[in-house]
């Protein structure tokens, strides 16, 4: 053929568009993008506000602000350091996670694999209700009902396991109230719903054939959980735990009621009535703070904000990487 000798022109690419199809579409598109951007802008503004307000304190205090252990507003210049609070928040968060995780994972297993569907729904609702309780209610309950009981648990732990460093106290005469141990329990109660609902979701999305496969090979309920169900969902559970930790770090009122806040770093003697928590400290000082102190408190909030943001960020990475075999 003669045409074959003529070079074929390069194909012309057509204009394709996935844009809005109608006026209604256009408005829908605009509304949603405004809403999405609004959330983004809001977070940015909060960060900027915190940063501007915190700047005087950060410049006057320097780096010791985050690791120092003194807060003195009588002195001139004023000293503001929140090391014990940052460490305390992390310690209480860690205790909360240690208590909450086994509870939440067991609850999720029970709901997904063991309860008949009607009971499972009831249990799910109850756990979600726990998340809906205002933290001031949990705080008051913690103060009046739970603390006296948990102090007894603390005394027992100290009596029988006192040789373990974390269960040591300087003197049993101080009582066992107001400790990070109690605050950790309170936080655990508050984050159980988050971890449970994420774990429940992951468990219920598991391929039933995987579980049946394990049972058909002679697995028991426990060995199937240990070797198949848990390893397959572990990444997502860790993500849920970190989200819970994020909530634990930000918890304010409930911890404020049950914790003895001091400016001595409590490295890990969790039964000692001596602890700290950034958010609760802000709450306790804000009422009578001088203008200089307010800047310091806002700086503390900024630090907490960044800490929480970092943990949520890590959580989302872990959750996304958790199941490489699952293609979105």
């Amino acid at each position, binding site marked *: 053929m003669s045409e074959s000798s003529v070079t074929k022109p390069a194909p012309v690419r057509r204009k394709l568009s996935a844009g809005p199809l109608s006026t209604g579409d256009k408005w829908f598109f605009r509304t949603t993008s405004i809403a999405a951007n609004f959330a983004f802008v809001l977070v940015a503004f909060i960060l900027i506000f915190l940063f501007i307000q915190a700047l005087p304190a950060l410049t006057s205090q320097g780096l010791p602000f985050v690791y120092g252990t003194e807060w003195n507003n009588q002195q001139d210049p004023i000293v503001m350091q929140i090391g014990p609070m940052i460490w305390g928040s992390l310690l209480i968060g860690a205790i909360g996670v240690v208590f909450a995780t086994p509870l939440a994972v067991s609850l999720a297993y029970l709901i997904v694999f063991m309860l*008949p*569907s009607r009971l499972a729904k009831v249990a799910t609702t109850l756990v979600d209700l726990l998340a809906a309780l205002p933290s001031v209610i949990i705080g008051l309950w913690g103060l009046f009902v739970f603390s006296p009981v948990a102090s007894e648990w603390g005394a027992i732990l100290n009596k029988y396991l006192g040789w373990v460093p974390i269960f040591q106290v300087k003197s049993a005469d101080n009582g066992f109230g107001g400790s990070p141990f109690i605050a950790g329990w309170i936080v655990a109660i508050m984050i159980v719903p988050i971890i449970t609902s994420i774990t429940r979701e992951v468990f219920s999305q598991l*391929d039933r*054939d*995987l579980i*049946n*496969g*394990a*049972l*058909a*090979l*002679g*697995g*028991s309920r426990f*060995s*199937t959980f240990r*070797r*198949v169900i848990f*390893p*397959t969902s572990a990444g997502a559970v860790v993500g849920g735990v970190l989200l819970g930790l994020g909530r634990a770090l930000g918890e304010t009122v409930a911890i404020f009621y049950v914790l003895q806040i001091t400016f001595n770093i409590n490295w890990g003697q969790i039964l000692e009535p001596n602890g700290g928590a950034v958010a609760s400290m802000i709450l306790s000082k804000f009422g009578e703070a001088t203008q200089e102190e307010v800047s310091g408190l806002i700086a503390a909030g900024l630090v907490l904000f960044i800490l929480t943001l970092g943990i949520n960020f890590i959580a989302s990475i872990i959750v996304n990487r958790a*199941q490489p*075999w699952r293609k979105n």
Partner: protein
Amino acid sequence: MNSLAKASTLSSENISVWFGQRQVLSDVNLVFPANKVTALIGPSGCGKSTFIRTLNRMHELIPGAGLAGSVYLDGKDIYAEDFDAVSVRIKIGMVFQKPNPFPTMTIRDNILSGLRLSGRKIENGDEVVETSLRRASIWNEVKDRLNDQAISLSGGQQQRLCIARSLAMNPQVLLMDEPCSALDPGSTRRIEETIQELSSSMTIVIVTHNMQQAQRVSDQTAFFLADDNTPGGVVEFGATEQIFNGPIDQRTNDYVNGHFG
């Protein structure tokens, strides 16, 4: 070589099945002789898959499931109180419709998973792995990548891995619930070859929707059917040759010749 378990005769006697109040199977009596391949055929929803799950006590894991009748493994009732479900499932292996290798485990660990799940000691694991993979005719494809993740295999390979995983338990009976329905023709053919080889050492029951497959692999065939709003049951049971070439019941004739279903 590990000595292989002897194939066993499996039989069902008056098996009826309920889900809640609804009866889905009625009075199924079948005998699966040692070293024979039996195909279960019939339209969707006639209870074949439900029936095969009564043969290794997987049925009882479904909430609301009910059962009447008995299943005998070499004359012993597998639902008897002194026969626990775990030992039943160890003796009677199962391969599922969709390949279901454990995604967090390597190829090797998948093969050994049954031993671990059932709490058995693993002696000469390498030998178990090689023997099982050889019997499932997949050894040559995976021998150099035993520590790769099982999900890196193709669908057909995954299914043969699942067969090998069951074989590692050294079962006397192997139940297969539409093992090829998710696979391409090439993989299907290889699995059919594997089934033929395995029948020399075990009893095989296979559910299939593929008439040609039933004719190719099985010695005997049972045709299941559920009429409207009645529990399913066996219409006809006999040598595969007879079911496909000279069925006694008109409904069997219609089904195997593609007139319905």
